[in-house]
């Protein structure tokens, strides 16, 4: 049984510009102990997908199962128990901690809400988790603004770990951090994964980080998953033209500079192109791509791609 499973998940928003199809038919599975990367450009819906899985945003259509239980329509009360098992780490360590609470208060609150032990026991838990993520013990009495970005991200990780979750959705956890701090946080996440047997859904726009950090990678474009493969396969044999363009666009000192691999901008999710949603920017687009939406199909075990011409791309 997969840890979390989403099928044909859709999250649409009504806006002034029309219906915003942020997540538009996503199937996804995260197995226990797995780190799944979710990559894509800003506006592709990857963050919304993460929040939908946590039921922080309500899905418009589709189904979410957590450990076999359908949580798509659970009410807030019963959702509370599930919430313990799925946690989230946010991108901006400045916005994700309440500036008016001390670190001790921030970390104790979830334990109070979930009635985990009496006051001394809670204090012990908090002290333990603070040490675990590499923060000094006196952090408890300090406020978030007294910490640097990297340290705040450690606090965010501590908060996510408090309730012993099974799955943590990491929404760009290192992209707001300086390069010299990123490695610290990534290593901490790996260590916590090993220690607590966690699974991660790792949302990122940074392919090199995903390359290091993930077991399996999903590439998302305009609300859909366009390619899914295990880490090794994706980097050695990317099939979707979008995946290839993303990889080519990463500046790489080891090769001479190439022309920008993709022209144009990401179309708006309120006005998704017909046919294959990537055809407006795709260098390989054919007549078929303009009219027919390609299905998400397996081209070999564990490697799926939504592209009409994926087989010819080698």
């Amino acid at each position, binding site marked *: 049984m997969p840890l979390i499973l989403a099928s044909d998940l859709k999250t649409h928003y009504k806006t002034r510009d029309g219906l915003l199809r942020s997540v538009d038919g996503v199937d996804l599975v995260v197995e226990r102990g797995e*780190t799944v990367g979710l990559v894509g*450009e*800003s506006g592709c819906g990857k963050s919304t997908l993460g929040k939908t899985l946590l039921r922080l945003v309500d899905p418009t259509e589709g189904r979410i199962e957590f450990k076999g239980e359908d949580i798509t329509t659970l009410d807030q009360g019963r959702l509370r128990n599930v919430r313990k098992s799925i946690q989230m780490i946010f991108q901006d360590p400045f916005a994700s901690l309440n500036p008016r609470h001390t670190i001790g208060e921030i970390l104790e609150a979830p334990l109070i809400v979930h009635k985990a032990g009496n006051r001394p026991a809670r204090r012990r838990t908090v002290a333990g988790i603070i040490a675990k993520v590499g923060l000094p013990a006196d952090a408890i009495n300090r406020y978030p603004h007294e910490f*640097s*970005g*990297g*340290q705040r991200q450690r606090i965010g990780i501590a908060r996510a770990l408090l309730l012993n979750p099974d799955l943590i959705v990491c929404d760009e956890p290192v992209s707001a951090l*300086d*390069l*010299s*701090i*990123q*490695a*610290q946080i*990534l*290593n901490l996440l*790996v*260590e916590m994964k090993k220690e607590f047997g966690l699974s991660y859904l790792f949302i990122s*726009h940074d*392919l*090199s*980080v995903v*390359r*290091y*950090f993930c077991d399996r990678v999903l590439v998302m474009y305009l609300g859909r998953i366009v390619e899914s493969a295990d*880490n*090794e396969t994706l*980097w050695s044999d990317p099939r979707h033209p979008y995946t290839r*363009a*993303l*990889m080519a*666009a*990463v*500046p*790489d*000192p*080891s090769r001479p*500079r190439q*022309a*920008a*691999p*993709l*022209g144009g*901008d*990401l179309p708006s999710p309120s006005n998704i192109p017909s046919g294959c949603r990537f055809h407006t920017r795709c260098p390989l687009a054919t007549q078929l791509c303009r009219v027919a939406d390609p299905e998400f199909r397996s081209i070999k075990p564990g490697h799926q791609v939504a592209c009409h011409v994926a087989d010819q791309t080698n």
Partner: protein
Amino acid sequence: MTSLLLQVENLTIGFPRAEPVRNLSFEVRAGETLAIVGESGSGKSLTALALMQLLPRAAAVISGRIIFDDRDLLGLDAREMRHLRGRDIAMIFQEPMTSLNPVMSIGRQIGEVLKAHEKLSGRAARERAIELLKLVRIPAAEKRVDDYPHQLSGGMRQRVMIAMAVACRPKLLIADEPTTALDVTIQAQVLDLLDTLRRELQMAVVLITHDLGVVAQWADRVVVMYAGRKVEQALPGELFNDPLHPYTRGLLSASPRLKHDFHYLEGPLTEISGSIVSAAGEVGCPFRPRCCQARASCGHQVPPLIAQTPDRLVACPFTSSLKAVPDAAHLSL
């Protein structure tokens, strides 16, 4: 040897309680792209603002000279500087949305820049604005010229910013993190455009960034800053093949790489411990608190820049011993 366009000598910028840029010297040659790379807190953005004489009110240049085209910018009065800004030196910023006026069409905004520096009729300004939009490769420029900033995507907005910056054909363009807010596919487009314009308009570009990948592909020379000081200067190839300063070496080895199949199952990434804040109040080498090779002598004075070649400077006296660190060491952990 191309001529020097800009020379910064011993620039120190101070706030009432701190000196975020200390004793910084570098030069920009006509027509080249110089990258200034560093993480937040390294003083790179303040340096850019100092070149434009647009420092925040609390900050001031404490000492040093900024010589542009044989004139010391620090000696110019406000009027002369205003004349220079936008015409000879132009700047683009990280966030194109907040740098554009939301209630004015982009054509008019470009026209305002032109009118500030030359006498132009409204119609002529509009014509020139359309030309400039074409120059920055905005499709359907004649239609787009009446658009407002919110109608454009992030990449397009940055193109408009670039059009405004190059409107008067400046000799020097300062680009402060021009692509940080953009996606990787758009980033490539924008940097390509900057590079093309640099050649077409024969201007020099100071590219300020935290992204070493960008540096590698778009810079002619690189200055690495740490805690307000220049710690290394090199050609990009040298920097990536043979980084000398412990900070540069640490950064390069701490970064996961796309083309290098290192995976978390094989071991942790190498870390640089601590953060840049720990440089505050250090007497000696600013990197000392985080440096694994730090010795007692590093705390006595700021290490001077040692020239290996005229274009290769490093502010660490122990670079030769550093090279003795073995390859593939982190796999053994």
